[in-house]
Each structure stands twice: as C-alpha cells, then as structure tokens.
C-alpha cells in the first residue's frame, strides 16, 4: 500500500514536470499546427539563460526564471517573423519538420559553442531544497513546487484559450486562416502572440524541469520524443489532455520502472501503444482532428 502510494506520488510529480515542458508544444502543435521540433531547443535555451543568470550574473532563482522566460520569448520572436511564418498550416508539415530540425541543430551547435558540452545547473534556492512529507512519502520540495506551478499553468491556459475572445479568434485563425482574415481577424499578430506563448511555456518548462532533465546541448534532441508522446496521448491542442497524458505517462513510467525495471522501456512504449490504440486521437480529441 505504502509502495503504491509512493509510486503514485513519484508518478504524479514526474508527470507534472512532463506536463509543464510539453504543454507549450501542445499549444504550438495543436493550435498553430506547427510540428515544432525545436520546442526542446527553446526549453533548453530557457534553461541555459536561467543557469547563466543565476550562476554568472548571480540573480535569484525567481528572477532568473522570469529573465529566462522573457529573454527566450524575445529571442525567438524574430524566428517567428523570419522562419515560422512561412511554414504555418498543416499542409506544410514536412517543411515544418525539416525547418525545425534544422533550427534545433543550429541552436544545439550554438549552445555547444557558447557554453561548452558539459552539464549546466540552475542552483535551487534554500527554500526549494530538502523534502516535504506527504503522508508516509517524502518528496523533494522542488517537485512539490513544480506540481503547484503546473496546476497554475493548466488553469491559466485553459481560461485563456477556451474562455476569452482571444482564444476563440486564435482557434478560428488556426482552423481557416484565409476565412479568419476575411472576417477581419489579424491572424499574423495572433500567431505571433501564440508563438510567444508557446516558447514562453517551453522556457518555463526548461527551467523548472532542469533538475530532472539536466541541461546539456543535446537536451534539445534527447527529450523531444517524450514531449511528443505527451502531446499525442493528450490530443494536440488540448490543455487538459496534455495534463492527463503527462500524469498517465508519468505514473505508467514510474510504475513500470519500479515493478519491472529490466523491461522499463518496453512497458512505457507498450503502454503508449495501448493508449493510442484505445484513444487514437488522444485523451481529449485534438483540435487539429
């Protein structure tokens, strides 16, 4: 019983971290229909900025987080103008894959050049080190913090996309950009804003998740499959879907590794296949479907 509880807690904590990093991808993929394989790269950039800000510039953790998100968004906005704008739309999927892989390569090479190949860390403040007791189970304070941040992100995003006119206009622009423009919706600005949202979330996830997914130049490539899995299981563009998927995968992965570590990898992918077999459009049928 206690073990089950332990697995559940660990799984939820892991899941929330997956959620916070992947939800930005769900936004760009589901809402803008951009297969943004550079999502991991943006997350990594956020992490590196925070690491630099905290370690070299000596900012506090909170401040470093804000700076990282802001700088990442600012740095990637020109990319939207110059690159992404040309590949919007589901018809361009292959071009998207190629372009974002190319971009990822460039970012990886750049980070490698600037910061070197070794692992980087973002020092945690005193407050977030140590553990909190959750019944019989102790979980690291930092993870508890991430869970809270994830929940806040979840609610905020849901409200923004489902309840505001911005959300409606955005979804209209995604569904049929030409018609949306003909109705007077400024699709270009909307896309810019949404892109910024997506990269901001990526950076946030990169910083908050750095304890689990350590920062190094190949971060950008190493974890992208994991993020895609969350988005696919959740249903692209569905915020609640991403959360449900991240938690489900987190728990499955944790349980698999605990119970049958030798076949941990099998277990995870077999579960993925089963879930996608049962829900081919993801838990919450994706917007793009």
């Amino acid at each position, binding site marked *: 019983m206690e073990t089950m509880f332990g697995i559940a807690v660990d799984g939820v904590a892991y899941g929330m971290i997956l959620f916070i990093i992947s939800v930005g991808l769900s936004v760009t993929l589901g809402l803008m229909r951009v297969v943004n394989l550079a999502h991991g790269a943006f997350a990594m950039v956020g992490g590196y900025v925070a690491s630099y800000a905290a370690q070299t510039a000596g900012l506090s953790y909170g401040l470093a987080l804000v700076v990282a998100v802001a700088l990442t968004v600012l740095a990637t906005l020109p990319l939207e103008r110059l690159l992404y704008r040309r590949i919007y739309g589901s018809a361009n999927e292959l071009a998207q894959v190629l372009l974002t892989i190319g971009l990822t390569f460039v970012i990886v090479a750049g980070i490698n050049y600037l910061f070197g190949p070794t692992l980087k860390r973002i020092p945690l403040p005193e407050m977030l080190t140590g553990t909190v007791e959750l019944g019989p189970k102790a979980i690291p304070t930092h993870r508890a913090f991430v869970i809270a941040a994830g929940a806040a992100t979840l609610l905020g995003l849901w409200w923004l996309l489902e309840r505001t006119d911005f959300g409606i206009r955005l979804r209209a622009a995604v569904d049929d950009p030409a018609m949306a423009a003909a109705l007077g919706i400024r699709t270009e600005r909307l896309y810019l804003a949404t892109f910024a949202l997506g990269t901001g979330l990526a950076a946030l996830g990169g910083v908050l998740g750095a304890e689990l997914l350590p920062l190094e130049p190949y971060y950008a490539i190493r974890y992208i499959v994991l993020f895609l899995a969350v988005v696919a299981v959740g249903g692209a563009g569905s915020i609640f879907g991403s959360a449900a998927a991240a938690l489900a995968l987190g728990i499955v992965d944790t349980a698999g590794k605990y119970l049958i570590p030798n076949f941990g990898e099998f277990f995870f*992918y077999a579960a993925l296949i089963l879930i996608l077999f049962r829900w081919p459009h993801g838990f919450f049928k994706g917007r793009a479907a």
Partner: protein
Amino acid sequence: MTSVAERPDPMSDPVSRHTPPAARRDLGWIGIPLVAAVGLAAYWLLPDDLALLTRIAASALFVLSLDLVLGYGGIATLGQAAMFGTGAYAAGIVAVNWINDPFAMLAAGGIAGGGIALATGALILHARGLTLLMLTIAVGQIVQEVANKARDWTGGSDGLSGIDPAPVLGLFRFDMFGRTSYLFALAVLVAGLLVARRIMRSPFGLACRGVREDPLRISAIGGSPKSYLVALYAVAGVFAGVAGALTAVTSGIVGLDSAGFPWSAEALVMLVLGGTGRLYGAVIGTAAFMGIHHILAASDPFHWMGFIGLFLIGIVLFLPGGIASGLERLGGLLRRKEDRA
C-alpha cells in the same frame, strides 16, 4: 496535424501544379538511368571513397522505402528503422548461423522487414497524423529494445559482428577496398528504384495516392484505406529490410543504432531534403545529406551540426519541394528556353 496532415500542399509547389503530369513522369523516367550512370561514374572518379558511396547507396534504398510510405501513402513515420533494423539483423543472423550468400541475406532481410511491417502496420495504421507518428516511434523503440534484450542472437548493444558474406555469385569477394560492396549496393539500389517505380505506376500506386489524399473518399468508392496502407507499409518494409540486409552485407556488422529513432529521423530529413513522392528524390536527398555531412564532419566535426542546420533551413526557405523540385524547375526552365529557340 491529424487528418489533413500529410498532404503536400499543391499551392506550395508551383511546379507540380502547372506541369502536366506527363512531363513530371518523364523526368522520373530519366531519374533512374541517371542514378545508375552517376553511380557508375562515381566508381571511377572517386575510387578512394567507395566506403562512403556504399553507405550512401544502401541508405538511399532505405530512404526510398520511406518515400513509398510517406510520399505515396501519406504515412508520416519516425519508425522506419524498425524495418531496416529487423532486415539487417535477420540477414546477419542468417549469415552467422546458416548461409552467408549475399542474395540469400537480402532475401532474408526483405522477408523479415516485410513481415514486421505487415504485423505492426496492421496494429497501428488505423491512426493518422501525430498519433501514428508516435505509434511508429513506439514500435521502433520496442524493436530496438527486443534487439537489445536478445543478446544471444543479436549481440545486444555490442552489435552483431562476425558477418562474413560469401563472394557475390561465387565470383566477387567483398574486399577491403569496397569495390564489390559498392557495385553490389548500386545494383540493388537501381533494381529497387525500378521495382518501386513500377509499383507506383500500377493500379495499386494510384489507389495509394487516393488514400493519401482522402481515406474516407476511398471507402466511399468501396476500397479499404487501411488495407492499402498496410499493404503499402509491408511493401516498403520489404524495401527497408533489403536496405538493412544490404548494409549488413556490405559492412559485416549490425548495431542497435540500425533500428534506432535517430536513424528513422535522419531518413525523414534526407527524404524531405530530396523531395517526396518522386523516388529519385530519395537518392538525391541521401547523397546530398550524407555527402555534406561527410565533408563538414571532416573539416569541422565540432560545428558541422550548425552548418547542416543552416543548410536544412535554407532548403525549406528557398527550395520548398526539396532538391528534386529545384531540379525539376530548372529542367522546366531549360525546356521552355528550348521551346522558344
């Protein structure tokens, strides 16, 4: 990115839009002899680089298999290496344990690749878009994990070594200089291209194109989209398996990487780079990518990644249909000039 996902946008590709299909087909026809001719020329011109050329030829066959599923079936996959790896291991295991004739190895690879494609295809091809992409990745990972666990047969992460293929037709030994390897690989590639072209111009190829565009419409004329896709996936699996076997024959070793995700992803990049739905685009893309990689990695291994990234971005921005579409456009221009003259 689900239902409409894999359709190439007719608007983004002005050439295919306005060239009558017949003209495009003609270019396709020149493509294959051209591959053979350039391949042979390379044999004489670059005798010291046969190792690289052999890898390009075998990889091109693999990328070709991906073109079959993606370019003609609209199946976006990041798990094609599962078939490649299965074919490679099958060929290797057959060679190590039973018979090391290169053709027998190719046959084993083809059967294994086709078999695994048939089995997994039937399981996953109900899905589309991102879901399918994930499923293919998952299948790839599982195949790789099986290969890792079956150490007794596959050598696990150490790789399956000790593959020593017999001389081709009992005459041509696989030498250190790679002459036999290269010519053998080139011949298999050209044969593969011919067969693929044949299949894609058949009624089956036509039906597959229909499925790619609108599977529901296919069922409305009485076809079963899934059975076409599964068949196509299996056919492509045979190609991928043969490509894997070809690599096993020419390199004498099979590693876990041959079934890995990076290899699938790289193949996708090479295909899109070359241009989908053309067959010879696969060859162009593979040659361009691996050639450039080779040159960059030799001159500046630390930063080649950045350069190749810029190159990919450049292709998307300036040659949206891939290199092959650029060539077609060039061809179109020349022809128009001729017409005027």
